[in-house]
């Protein structure tokens, strides 16, 4: 699988694609815009936007883009991460055809665990149709030829940025997180040598100092995302920038959760059925965000909502962040009015 005739590689594939016109475009605000390993000579893959992959891989690449040695190295890191829940395992992160911060860690983890029979779903902020999600889905549809889907239920591997799907995940599913900064202690203790020691010696008092500061300043714990958790009673872990609304979903989850940080070269994991406790104080217990109104589109309650500005006169609506759930709800029960 690894040996290939290099002449079949589209030569100017990364640098030349798009040419100057692309670079002159105003900088895109949404992350993930740059993720498009489009080779000008290769036929462009069917965009799996509506679900269902192309079914056949672009043979210019090894299965799922990375070479087998690299995937093996990443799998070793993943296995170690699973063996020590919440522990950050260093790994030799590779250059991916996308910039750091666009999900290079998540993509490498996904590439390492993906098999030909897997069904892949990619979400960005809960949504299947944002640039990052579409691009990564397209990337794997092309380099691995796997089936892709937008349905949470049908997916076996879900790569995510900033959300955990609302639908409860099952033991047949793996959730892969894109992590920008894996070290929960980083902003309190900048020295990496020291934070490693603090993890090793379980010196986590400083984590509560952060929460103390929140309460002292705002009267309540104002951390709303990347809310630190204690995994399996041992390691304090940054659950990546998911809203704290999603923290309870990690606790004793049936699904395996893998976290990949490409730039920081760390992989960590929460194995299925592991205790994940959000840090808090006795007199200021952990609480998730609450929304007073249901989703404006599907009427769901008890889900995480995004605020959408609808016009320039102050009009706004709150809709499901999980686009798959929202569509499912609307298909199942038509919203009145």
């Amino acid at each position: 699988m690894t040996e290939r005739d290099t002449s079949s590689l589209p030569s100017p594939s990364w640098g030349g694609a798009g040419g100057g016109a692309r670079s002159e475009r105003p900088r895109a605000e949404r992350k993930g815009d740059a993720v498009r390993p489009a080779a000008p000579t290769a036929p462009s893959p069917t965009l799996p936007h509506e679900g269902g992959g192309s079914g056949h891989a672009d043979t210019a690449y090894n299965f799922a883009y990375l070479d087998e040695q690299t995937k093996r190295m990443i799998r070793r890191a993943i296995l170690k991460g699973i063996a020590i829940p919440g522990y950050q395992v260093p790994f030799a992160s590779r250059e991916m055809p996308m910039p750091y911060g666009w999900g290079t860690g998540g993509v490498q983890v996904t590439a390492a665990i993906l098999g030909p029979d897997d069904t892949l779903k990619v979400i960005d902020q809960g949504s299947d149709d944002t640039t990052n999600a579409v691009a990564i889905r397209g990337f794997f549809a092309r380099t691995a030829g796997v089936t892709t889907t937008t349905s949470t239920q049908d997916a076996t591997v879900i790569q995510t940025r900033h959300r955990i799907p609302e639908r409860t995940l099952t033991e047949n599913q793996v959730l892969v997180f894109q992590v920008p900064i894996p070290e929960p202690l980083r902003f309190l203790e900048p020295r990496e040598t020291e934070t490693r020691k603090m993890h090793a010696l379980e010196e986590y008092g400083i984590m509560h100092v952060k929460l103390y500061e929140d309460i002292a300043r705002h009267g309540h714990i104002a951390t709303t995302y990347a809310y630190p958790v204690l995994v399996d009673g041992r390691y304090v872990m940054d659950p990546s920038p998911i809203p704290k609304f999603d923290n309870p979903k990690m606790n004793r989850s049936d699904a395996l959760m893998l976290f990949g940080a490409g730039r920081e070269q760390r992989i960590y994991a929460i194995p299925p059925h592991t205790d994940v406790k959000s840090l808090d104080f006795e007199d200021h217990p952990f609480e998730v965000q609450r929304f007073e109104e249901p989703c404006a589109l599907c009427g769901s309650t008890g889900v995480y909502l995004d605020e959408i500005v609808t016009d320039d006169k102050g009009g706004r609506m709150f809709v499901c962040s999980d686009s798959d759930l929202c569509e499912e709800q609307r298909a199942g029960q038509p919203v009145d009015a």
Partner: protein
Amino acid sequence: MPHHTSLDNDTPLLRASGVSRFYGSRIGCHDVSFELWPGEVLAIVGESGSGKTTLLNCLSGRLTPTAGVVEYRMRDGTVRGIFSMSEAERRFLARTDWGFVHQDARDGLRMTVSAGGNVGERLMAVGARNYGAIRGEALDWLERVEIAADRVDDRPDTFSGGMRQRLQIARNLVTGPRLVFMDEPTSGLDVSVQARLLDLLRGLVADLGLAAIVVTHDLAVARMISHRLMVMRGGEVIETGLTDQVLDDPRSAYAQLLVASVLQP
């Protein structure tokens, strides 16, 4: 506090035997031995480069000595060598039973965390999880070091030098340590602030029955707060004795020079 009841004065709190630290072929400190008893304040004086800070760092476990043993009597009465215990134990000891007051408060405080958070950190590190209780304790300690209660949510970078030093002391004393190491605690402060800090320190040491090892180049500081004095030069202890005795009647030539060098206003 429970540790006062377990005080028995039969064994020293800290015993250093032949502590030496070399930096390559240079001497940091050489063959220092002494005993420190509960409630006793020992000052280490000497000129710059005489090995005072190296010795203090060796005693407090921050620097591993090249040779020699430092033993500490734990709260349960057992005597342990601080370099034969595990790093986890040593660090735990350092943040519960010991305090360390740095010369520069920036080294000892978290400048971006409020005063209350700074004082509360040690409590949270040993498992305090009740916000109200932690804050109450922090307020109590701020009062004891004469910092107004309405500054509890201010960051130390808005504090004056003297306040920072007092905050550092509060942060160290909140877990009720039995031994405090101080590295030039008053240098960098102006004279009136120094006097106030020394007065505060002297009061706290007496009230809490603290033992302390104070490194200073200022003989006036040594006279004011210490019971005993060690004079160092070139990494060696050249004279030791009761503070008043050494300062009023120095035996060695160097100690005589040191005492004679004090400026008289």
